[in-house]
């Protein structure tokens, strides 16, 4: 390199240009973009079937269930970005609804302490996975028994009463904009900022893609994984609180399908099991797509027995499409 152009040349080599950033960004988000396409297609079909959806009320009704699922899915996304999988998140969200409907009403201080203890337990789980090299998939599976057991212990049958302030949360329904859309955008922005714009987010991805590099750069692997698990637990607790505020009751089994639905949402949104990448926006598309599929299947009067089969087959079809786009991009 000549000395005259050195500043410019070095500037180009060390900082990626807008164009190269855009190309890499497009390559990484191509699988997630397919989820966006699937979401739009399903939305258009739903509107064609039932034009009433396009109103504020219709959209609110359609997307309400997506909000707690999105919070849980972003938690799953964080865990998956460090290369782990959480198989206990469904039971955890269920347990939080139980705590919200029992302890949080009768003894708010104890309830808050219980929720904090959950975050602490997750941090400990992260430490265990890092220090003892325990497979996260089994550790979280084991913990799912614990969450389920605690939930059954607190509230053997669904019921309870959520506190007044929690009910206010889902009672907020402005006339001019569907409330769930506001929540979905806000949650996605927070997750996007956390995963993509903070140094912690970068460290998280580094832990997933190349942990030796991270430790050689002077960062603690344990602290990164512990913080990731704690952040995921906070999101999962929020998911449980939102779900409890919507259903106004506690049920440890109310979110049983969240475990697999959140993984499916992250995968739909462009994620993978390798770790090292995070897809907060793609995950949001994935969650909305999955929720829309559920609503659409109800709209077209499909027999309720067949709905889960249709859901499974549509997920497979979207993922098959993703494989084709990935090959196309390569």
């Amino acid at each position: 390199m000549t000395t005259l152009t050195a500043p410019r040349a070095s500037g180009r080599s060390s900082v990626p240009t807008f164009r190269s950033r855009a190309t890499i960004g497009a390559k990484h988000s191509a699988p997630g973009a397919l989820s966006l396409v699937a979401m739009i297609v399903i939305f258009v079909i739903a509107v064609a079937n039932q034009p009433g959806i396009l109103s504020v009320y219709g959209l609110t009704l359609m997307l309400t269930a997506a909000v707690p699922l999105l919070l849980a899915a972003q938690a799953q996304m964080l865990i998956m970005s460090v290369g782990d999988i959480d198989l206990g998140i469904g039971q955890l969200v269920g347990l939080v609804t139980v705590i919200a409907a029992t302890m949080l009403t009768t003894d708010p201080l104890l309830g808050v302490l219980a929720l904090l203890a959950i975050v602490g337990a997750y941090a400990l789980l992260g430490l265990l996975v890092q220090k003892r090299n325990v497979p996260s998939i089994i550790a979280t599976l084991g913990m799912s028994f614990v969450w389920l057991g605690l939930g059954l212990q607190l509230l053997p049958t669904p019921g309870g009463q959520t506190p007044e302030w929690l009910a206010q949360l889902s009672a907020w329904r402005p006339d001019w904009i569907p409330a769930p859309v506001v929540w979905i955008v806000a949650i996605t922005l927070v997750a996007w900022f956390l995963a993509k714009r903070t140094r912690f987010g970068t460290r998280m991805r580094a832990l997933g893609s190349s942990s030796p590099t991270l430790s050689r750069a002077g960062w603690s692997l344990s602290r990164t994984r512990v913080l990731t698990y704690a952040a995921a637990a906070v999101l999962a607790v929020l998911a449980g609180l939102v779900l409890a505020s919507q259903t106004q009751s506690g049920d440890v089994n109310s979110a049983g399908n969240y475990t697999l639905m959140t993984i499916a949402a992250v995968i739909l949104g462009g994620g993978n099991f390798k770790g090292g990448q995070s897809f907060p926006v793609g995950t949001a598309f994935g969650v909305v797509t999955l929720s829309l599929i559920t609503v659409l299947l109800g709209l077209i009067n499909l027999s309720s027995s067949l709905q889960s089969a249709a859901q499974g087959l549509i997920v497979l079809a979207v993922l098959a499409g993703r494989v084709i786009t990935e090959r196309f991009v390569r």
Partner: protein
Amino acid sequence: MNALNATKTKTASRFTWPAWGWSLIGVLGVWLCIIAVGGGNPGGPVLQALSLAPYLVLVSIGQMLVISLGPGNIDVSVGAIVSMASYVSVAVGALAGPLAGLAAAVLAGVAAALLSVIAIMLLRVPPIIATLATSLVVASATLLLADANRAGADAALRGFVNARVFGIPVTAILVAVLTVLIALALKRTMYGLSVAAIGQSTLAARKAGLRVTSTIVTTYLLSGAFAGLAGGLLAAYISPSTVLGDSYLLDSIAVVVLGGTLIAGGRPVVAGLWTGAVFFVLLSSLLNLVGWNLGAQNVLKGLLVVVVIVISSRVTKTGRSTLSRFLSSLRREPAATPTPADTPALTKENTHA
């Protein structure tokens, strides 16, 4: 397969602590507790456990084979298949006899697994999502079958699953024979060795000329078949229900892990399925005896799974587990601890190979 040879030479030189040893200690410990608390005939609780354990072992055989294929491989459709197969067994059994019913249950399991295999192999969907989609489809089939069918299980089949020889349930004997056959197949046949080799390194297995694709396909189909058979038998032992198989998904994975099978793949431990399953069933009856409710039982079950993997992850670093290795692991950190980030690298090969 180097690990297999290494284990053999090890056995010749000194005592090898079997991978299923911990769960056997667990079984004996729980058994002693039951005798101490409940009193009565010491063999009673074991015989009782042997009537429930075979179904769990059947489902776990398939799960163990799938998990042994390496990181990323797991079958989350077994629970749904058990429920569906229970209805198939009863419906076909009412028309064409109990044997045809059982065969139909197995075939239904294979058909469901075929959907997973198509998704994994042709659509390149990660196994956990592929089997999840299958379980959703199977759940629909179960609901349709449940609407159409209100019959009970065949009397002959009911007699068979409740039959005992010298007090030991016939199903336990037959499933024990089956596990011995599976153990032999894993040690002696091309298929069995391929499963372990693929679990250790898919890339190496492929380079060595093993039939990776057909081995993976066979394994998932076998898992479906075993879940189907378990469902078909459970239809007679309990009764068909849409939630019959729900607990079998988590329980089968827990039994596989408790039994000493490496969760990272490459080392199936067949004997551990029995110790793991009997331990689970015995623990359940002990806690019932003591008066623990379902919630507390689940908490203990979950903590046990976590504790066992924490211990076993230290003991079984390289696929062997010797007593000395365990003792040394208590004293100091192993020098070269593979980081968890190494595992996803293998997943990459498995899912994209």
